[in-house]
């Protein structure tokens, strides 16, 4: 069943949710991009395709304190310093980004379960938003994601005059109850019309024909020594832009911060593109950028599928295409290794 909320009531809609739970919505970052901001009555919703950083921050933050060690005399006290998570709502998550949560779940929620991540997932409620204007950098359909039919606790479609909502889960149903007075039952014709329009655009997307044939489970030996890695990686600067804007990159480092009388142990995102990423006691097995570069794409297109029933760990959001300083990205890698270019 679908309900609609007039866009003239959008602020009331946000207020009704924020009155009960912390709400985050895409807003201007002041520099031409979008960022998820905590809603208050001054927060203006920004209707953009994608935020610069993906919403993975909500469940797997860029930095996060794990525990604290305090030295008292000859004793070391161990403190669990995590704050109890409260329910929160994220509005406007695009279909690709919603799918990225499944990919992260398989990493963090398989045994041993990451309790920090699990707690946030449990408390997070996702209102997804179907795409109405895909970008030329979009290729989510390559990974069988339908940008007109987003997953999430509530699926939403935004037309020129209304927000159409459909609850998919119990969490979603409960949230819909909060906004019942602002919404009304309705016909889904405008949603169907939007879907049809977007599908026409999808066929015209420059990356619509991107192929996955040569990737997936068991392809390591065929691809690992492909000479194309040399040319693909030659311009790579070794920065972490692609990994830090990526919704599915999940690698992290755990480090200690010296507080003067103890240690705060925290974790922060790491990047396989960084030269120290695989540094071990004996040295570093990945000596050049080629090996680091290869790792990132092999992980997404071969290793992750190897370990996860063939599921690829890319959702085609296009962030790396838009942001790489040298414009090298997974689409170019897929075409080159796939023999297209």
């Amino acid at each position: 069943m679908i309900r609609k909320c007039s866009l003239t009531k959008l602020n009331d809609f946000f207020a009704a949710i924020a009155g009960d739970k912390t709400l985050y919505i895409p807003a201007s970052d002041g520099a031409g991009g979008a960022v998820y901001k905590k809603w208050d009555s001054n927060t203006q919703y920004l209707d953009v395709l994608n935020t610069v950083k993906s919403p993975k921050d909500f469940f797997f933050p860029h930095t996060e304190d794990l525990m604290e060690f305090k030295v008292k005399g000859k004793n070391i006290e161990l403190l669990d310093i995590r704050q109890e998570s409260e329910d929160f709502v994220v509005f406007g998550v695009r279909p690709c980004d919603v799918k990225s949560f499944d990919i992260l779940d398989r990493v963090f929620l398989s045994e041993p379960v990451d309790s920090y991540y699990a707690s946030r997932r449990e408390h997070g409620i996702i209102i997804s938003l179907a795409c109405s204007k895909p970008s030329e950098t979009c290729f989510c359909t390559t990974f069988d994601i339908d940008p007109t039919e987003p997953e999430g606790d509530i699926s939403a479609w935004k037309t020129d005059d209304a927000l159409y909502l459909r609850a998919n889960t119990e969490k979603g149903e409960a949230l819909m109850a909060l906004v019942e007075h602002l919404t009304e039952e309705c016909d889904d014709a405008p949603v169907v019309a939007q879907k049809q329009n977007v599908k026409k655009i999808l066929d015209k997307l420059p990356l619509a024909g991107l192929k996955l044939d040569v990737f997936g489970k068991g392809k390591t030996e065929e691809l690992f020594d492909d000479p194309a890695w040399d040319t693909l990686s030659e311009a790579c600067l070794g920065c972490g832009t692609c990994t830090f804007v990526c919704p599915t990159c999940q690698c992290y480092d755990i480090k200690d911060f010296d507080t003067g009388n103890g240690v705060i142990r925290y974790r922060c995102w790491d990047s396989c593109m960084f030269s120290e990423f695989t540094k071990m006691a004996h040295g570093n097995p990945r000596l050049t950028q080629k090996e680091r570069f290869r790792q990132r794409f092999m992980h997404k297109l071969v290793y992750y599928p190897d370990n996860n029933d063939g599921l690829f760990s890319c959702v085609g959001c296009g962030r790396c295409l838009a942001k790489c300083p040298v414009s090298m990205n997974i689409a170019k890698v897929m075409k080159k290794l796939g023999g297209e270019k």
Partner: protein
Amino acid sequence: MQKINRDVLIDRAISLLNSGQVSSVLGWRQGEFFYDVTPAVFTDENDIRENFVWNDFCGANFSKYLVSKTKASDGKILVFLKPCDTYSFNQLLTEHRFDREKVYVIGIPCEGMVDTGKLKAQVGDGLVSAQSTEEGLLVTTLYSDEPVNVDIKSVLAERCINCKSKKHVAYDELLGDEGQIEDSDRFDEVARIEAMSPDERFAFWQGELSRCIRCNACRDVCPACTCEKCVFDNPVSGVENKAPVNSFEEKMFHIIRAFHVAGRCTDCGECSRVCPQNIPLHLLNRKFIKDINGFYGEYQAGECVGSRAPLVDYNLEDLEASDVFEGRDTQ
């Protein structure tokens, strides 16, 4: 539109390659779209004919690549440099970062490069194609029925609007006409920030730098950042950091980096071009350039090979540190 046609560059590249004068060519490779060109090493004639591009989207400065590419190559490398790139080239030579004998430089005039972010802000998302015209670009998008005419000036990168020089300060061969050092307004924005109250200025930089995701792209692209091992990547340095511990640390990273490249930064603007968060990092560097000019007299890093930057040079007439602290300058 660029004054020199792509075909002229291609002909020179192929002729130098075929005659054996160079063994490889550092140029721009066509991407998936019209704007996403990638720096590339070409060694094959057909590859050059098909994929070498020279257009309004060739912003990348190749000078820094010469540090690694000359080490990896036995033969000579042909590199195409825009005027601003030649300043970085000279600065790297001043710092003995590569062997000049292994490089053949062709200087190419530049009419400025397009900032794709500005282009998208103007014509919308879904860029499909762009055709250069005399005055600008004819752009088609997924959502426009007719091509949109875009005035090139309205989408040029900030560093190109405030271009400091269309003159090449290094080359073995020049294509087209040599340009002049420009009357640039590049310090206007710095002056505007200087005029702020300390609180306003702090708020300005806090707003900008709080967006930093510490990807290190600014550092990794910077031709003045060629340390074999950056202190921020070195776990034994004690300051290695992959992510912000707190906001104070975050701000320190960029200011420390600006200090480190002060006097060596040529103001090529690559830091701001690559920043995924659109932080105007070049303004920090320009502040130092402006101060150095004021305290020690005009100095342009990279203008000539071997020049001594004021910060590593000593004159009896130099300002005392206290003069600087109290805001006295030579002007």
